[in-house]
């Protein structure tokens, strides 16, 4: 528990530091020699019409700062660790770790399916946990999927969305990446519920929990092929913002 609180405190310090960085304007800085372009926004874009790329992002300056921070964090800290992990661990063992992590987090899927009154999905999640923990040997294998019992992914952000809570402002979280106010709230709620009532509370061993958290962080990054500034598009920030928002809309609506 203490480790968890310490981590959150570190996150707060980081966040406040980054907020200071965000005091800069998001419009291009003009000079006396500035000339308007041949094709202008005012002429070409009908502002009365909504556009999917126009995601509500009042903290854009801050978010872009975090986006850049994440790029450096990935480059100098996170990815070297992930690469070492991938180098050391045989592929089948990496798969085993992913299955194990997923199985432990079925707790969050279960609670959130239940909160959304999705009883069939809650049942599937429970069955998956039972099968994978036993037949799948502590969750290292995933025989449940082979029985067509697919993972019913739900998080608290989705639960809030299910009950009509809107996105709120778009946010780029340090290390975790794209999010929004609703989903970031969800991340905190899920993580509090998980550590207070979930598997870490059942085990009640700070060292084991810490080890699990480290493994989870590495495993999750290992599974996401996304690289900051890796798409090659100058509009990557805008595209990722759009794709994140769309993807969340899909998983909430389904």
């Amino acid at each position, binding site marked *: 528990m203490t480790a968890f609180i310490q981590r959150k405190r570190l996150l707060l310090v980081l966040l406040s530091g980054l907020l200071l960085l*965000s005091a*800069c*304007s*998001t*419009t*291009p*800085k*003009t*000079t006396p*020699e*500035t*000339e*308007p*372009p*041949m*094709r*202008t*926004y005012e002429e*070409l*874009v*009908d502002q009365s*019409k*909504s*556009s*999917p*790329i*126009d995601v509500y992002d009042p903290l*854009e*300056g801050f978010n*872009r*700062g975090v986006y*850049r921070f994440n*790029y450096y964090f990935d480059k100098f800290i996170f990815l070297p660790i992930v690469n070492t992990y991938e180098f050391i661990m045989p592929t089948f063992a990496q798969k085993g770790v992913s299955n194990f992590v997923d199985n432990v987090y079925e707790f969050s899927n279960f609670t959130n399916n239940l909160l959304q009154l999705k009883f069939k999905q809650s049942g599937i999640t429970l069955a998956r946990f039972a099968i994978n923990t036993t037949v799948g040997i502590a969750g290292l294998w995933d025989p449940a999927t082979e029985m*067509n019992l*697919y*993972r019913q992914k739900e998080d608290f952000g989705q639960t809030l969305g299910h009950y009509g809570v809107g996105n709120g402002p778009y946010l780029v979280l340090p290390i975790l990446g794209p999010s929004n106010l609703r989903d970031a709230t969800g991340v905190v709620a899920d993580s509090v519920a998980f550590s207070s009532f979930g598997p870490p509370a059942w085990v009640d061993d700070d060292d084991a929990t810490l080890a699990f958290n480290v493994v989870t962080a590495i495993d999750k990054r290992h599974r996401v092929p996304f690289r*900051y*500034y890796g798409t*090659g*598009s*100058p*509009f990557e*920030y*805008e*595209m990722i913002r759009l794709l994140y928002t*769309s993807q969340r*809309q*899909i*998983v909430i*609506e*389904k």
Partner: protein
Amino acid sequence: MHKIYLLVLVCLLTGLLAGTAEAEKPYFFPYVNPYEATVMEVPSIYEAQLPAEVPTKDFRIHPFPDRKTPDVFWYDKGLACSLVYQKHEAPLVFIIAGTGARYNSPKMINMQKALYQAGFHVISISSPTIANFIINASEGMVPGNLYEDAKDLYRVMEMAYEKVQNKIKVTDFYLTGYSLGGIQAAYVSMLDEEKKRFDFKKVLLINPPESLYNSVSKLEKLLGDNIPGGAANFDLWYQQLLDDLAGIYEEMGFFDLTGDYIYKAYKRHPPREDFLAALVGLSFTLSSSDMVFASDVMRGGGYITPKNVIMNNSTSLRPFAQVANRTSFTDYFREYFYPYFRQQEPGLTEQNLIDRLTLKNIESYLRSARKIGLLHNEDDIIMLPGEVDYLHGVFGDRAQIYPTGGHCGNMNDPTVVRFIVDFFKGQEG
């Protein structure tokens, strides 16, 4: 003893069967509709068997080291390329990516694996249309002129090879490219006849346009023509798409982006052709927007970004993205591209320039250069009626034309992969 005989017999039989199956498997592509072929992922059983990983080294080169990168591209440090290498002496194949594609796009990775498996070294070059190329490796920073693109590409190839030549032993140089990279490969090959740095022994053009202007005009119309009410209704169309995806997710019980999943979803809900055509158009529009923005910023602005403004990491680029999305290639050609080249060459007309950006423009070279082969599909959606036949006529027995596959949709088909590999492995033309 019996057991061993039996085992040998079984091995022989399975070996024989496998042999005949491989040799006689006719070309079969699961999508007959060219838009489906172009867009949809292919289920794994219809794909060539390729190694999961191949020895790869990513590296960056700096063709213009004194050029100052604007702050808005602060993350961009050198042109990214990759080398896939053999431990032994082998021919080196250069691959040029298609419009908007990077050196490590999925199609490029598949080509790298197929060529590695066949025993070649491979150097992969991003398309001159992507921002990374424009910023670092393009001399004029106005992409799309095949002669200029060829010079830029040639310079990149020389520098890339120089950078890795201590690592590999090369016997001969080969060249290929798909889509825009295909037509560029033809121009690079022609430039090489003069420069002779590589003296390419074999060059394969994969699904090249005959005329850049024709193909691009056709592609960019796909978005507006296939959205009910035109591009102005993009938002509605996009929301419908998200609803449909949510529906598929709910029905299938899970979601991923593998070819097998998409094929399964496709079997249940075959997408309408207008939807797929709009997707092709959208993908093209996004690539073209990136290109126009990067080129304009690098040349000091004035087209879609203001002149003399300071943009950095905090600058919101959304308004420029929206303007770029509303700038068609035809606009770019008329308002930006053509004036730029006319300035260098007074008297140049639009039609001159359009005619120059074709394979027809270098027809006599293509007819005489026996080392150049063509791989194309009859139903390629970027071609106007008659263009594939025309190219077939020019290349004659050096052309391999498949009946289906759309635009580059069949590049990982086992038959097509075998053709590509055999082309480079075969005797010199």
